[in-house]
C-alpha cells in the first residue's frame, strides 16, 4: 500500500478528483495549504505599501492506494494537474504501513 500526496494548483482540484475517480480510487483527503517552491511568491501593493507574499496557496491531496494502481494514480494526477507552467506542484509517494477502517475494524488492503 502506498500513500500518494500531491500538491497541486487549487483550480486543478476538480479535474484531479475526477481523474482519480475514473481509475477507481475510493477516497481522498483534501487540505488547503500554503508553501513555496520554484514559483516563489508575488508582491502586493496597497496604496504606497508593497508586501511580498512568500507563500502561495495550493491544495494538498492525499490518497491511500493499493500497490497495483499506484502508477496509474500518479499518471492520472500528473495529467490532470499539469498546465506546463511553473508552480504545477509535486507528487510524493511513500509506503503505508497499516490502514484501519474504523467502522468495521477491517485492516490492510480491505480497508482501502
Amino acid at each position: 500500500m502506498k500513500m500518494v500526496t500531491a500538491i497541486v494548483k487549487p483550480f486543478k482540484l476538480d479535474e484531479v478528483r475526477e481523474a482519480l475517480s475514473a481509475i477507481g480510487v475510493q477516497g481522498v483527503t483534501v487540505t488547503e495549504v500554503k508553501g513555496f517552491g520554484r514559483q516563489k511568491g508575488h508582491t502586493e501593493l496597497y496604496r504606497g505599501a508593497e508586501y511580498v507574499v512568500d507563500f502561495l496557496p495550493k491544495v494538498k491531496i492525499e490518497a491511500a492506494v493499493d500497490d497495483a494502481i499506484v502508477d496509474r494514480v500518479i499518471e492520472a494526477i500528473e495529467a490532470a494537474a499539469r498546465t506546463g507552467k511553473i508552480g504545477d506542484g509535486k507528487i510524493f509517494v511513500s509506503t503505508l504501513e497499516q490502514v484501519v477502517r474504523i467502522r468495521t475494524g477491517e485492516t490492510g488492503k480491505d480497508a482501502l
Partner: protein
Amino acid sequence: MNKLLIAFVLSLFALAFGESAFAQAASDAASAAAPAAPMAAASGASAAEAASAAASTPVANKGDVAWMIVATALVIMMSVPALALFYGGLVRSKNMLSVLMQVFVTFSMIVVLWCIYGYSLAFSEGNAFFGGFDRLFMKDMFNPKDGTFAMAATFSKGVYIPELLFLAFQATFAAITCCLIVGAFAERMKFSAVLAFMVLWFTFSYAPIAHMVWFWMGPDAYSAKEVVDATNAKAGFIWQMGALDFAGGTVVHINAAVAGLVGAFMIGKRIGYGRESFTPHSLTLTMVGAALLWVGWFGFNAGSALEAGNTAVLAFINTFSATSAAVLAWCIGEAVFKGKASMLGAASGAVAGLVAITPACGNVGLMGAIVIGFIAGFACLWGVTGLKRMLGADDSLDVFGVHGVGGIVGALLTGVFNNQALGGPGLVGDWVTATVSSVPIMDQLWIQFKGVVITIVWSGVVSLIAYKIVDMTIGLRVSEEDEREGLDITAHGETAYHN
C-alpha cells in the same frame, strides 16, 4: 473605567441642566412665543424691522424640510456604516471591531455633545472665533407650550428651515469629522483615550472652526446698506474674510486630517510597521464602505445648500462628476506608475474626489468640478505614496494623504473655479440685494489659502495639546502585548470573524 466616568458625568450634567433649561423655557414661554430665526431675528436691525419679522413668522417649505431630513439621514449613513466599513476593511482582521467601535461610539458621543453644547458653540452668536451659549441644551428651539419651532436661515432671503433640523444636519457633520480622525491612529490607541481626545478636540477645534467658517447672521439680516458692516462683524472670522467652503473642506476634512497626522506622530508607529505585512483584511468591505460614502455624500454636499433648490442640484451633479473623475485619475495614475489599477485605488480615488469637491460643490461650475476631481485623484495618490514617505508618520489609513491633500486641493481650487469666467456660479457680493459677482481669481485664491492655513494651524495646535493631555492622564497607547494580540479581544472582548 475612565471612559465610563466621563460618560456618567456627562449624562448627569445633561439631566441637571436639561431640566432647568426646560423649566425656564416653559416659564417664559410667553416672551418666546414667536421664536423667529435666531440668526435673522438677532440681526441688530431696527425695532420696526424686528417687529415686522415677528409679525410674519417664517414658515418652512415642506419640500426643503423633506430634503433636509433625507440629507441628514444620508450623512448618518456615511459614518455608520460607510466610514466604519471603509476603514474596517483596511485594517488587519484582529482590529476590525475596534475600528468599527471607535467610529460607532465616537459618532454617538459627538451627537450627544453637539446637542448639549456643541451646536451653541458653533452656531449661536458669540465672537468671531467661538459662538455663545444661547443654544445650550437646545434651549428655545422647541416650545412645548404652543408647539412652535425656532427657524434657521438658509441662503435665500425669506427661506427658513426648522432650526432643530439644521442642528441635526450639522450634528452629523461634527460627528463624522471626529470619526475621520480614527483612521490615522487605528490599530494601536486605547479606546478610552480615543473618546477623551475626541471630547477635547471637538470642543476646541471642531466647534470654533465651524463657527469661524460657517456662522453668519443669514441673508435676511442684511436688510439695508447701513447694517451690512455690523452684520458682517457678527459672522465667523474666516467667513468675514470671504472664504468659500460649501460643505466642509476646511471645517471637516483639513481639520480632521491635521488632527490625524498629529496623532500619528504623537502615538508613534504600529509595532512591526515597515517590516511585517499590514495588508487590508477585506477590500470587499472597503469597497462597500466607499460606495456607501459616495451615496451618503450627496446628502452631505447637496444638503449643504439647506434648500431643495438649484444650488442643491449644482452641488449634486458636481459631487457626482468630480468623484467619477477622481476614480479615473487614481486608476490611471496607478496603472502608469505602479503597473496595475487596483480596487483599493478606485475606492480611494472616490473618497479623494468626494473630499476635494466638498468645499467646491455648490461654488464651482460643471467642468470646474471635473477638473477638481481629476487633479484630486492624482494629488491624493501622491499623498498616500510620495508625501507619506516624506512625512514618515504611520498614518494607518492615510487620513492626511486623502482628506488633508484632497481637502487642500479642493479648498484652493474652489477659489479658482468659482469665477464666472471659468463657468462658476460666482458668489453673493452684496447680501442686501443678493447680487452675484465674481472676485478676481488670485484674490479669491489668496483668501482660500488663508482659510486653509488658519485651519491647519488651529487644528494642529489644539490636537497637540489634546493628545498631550490625554497622554498624561489616560495614556494614548495600548500595551505592546495587547497590540500584538489585537484590539478586538483586548479592548472589546470579542472577535470579528470565527472560522
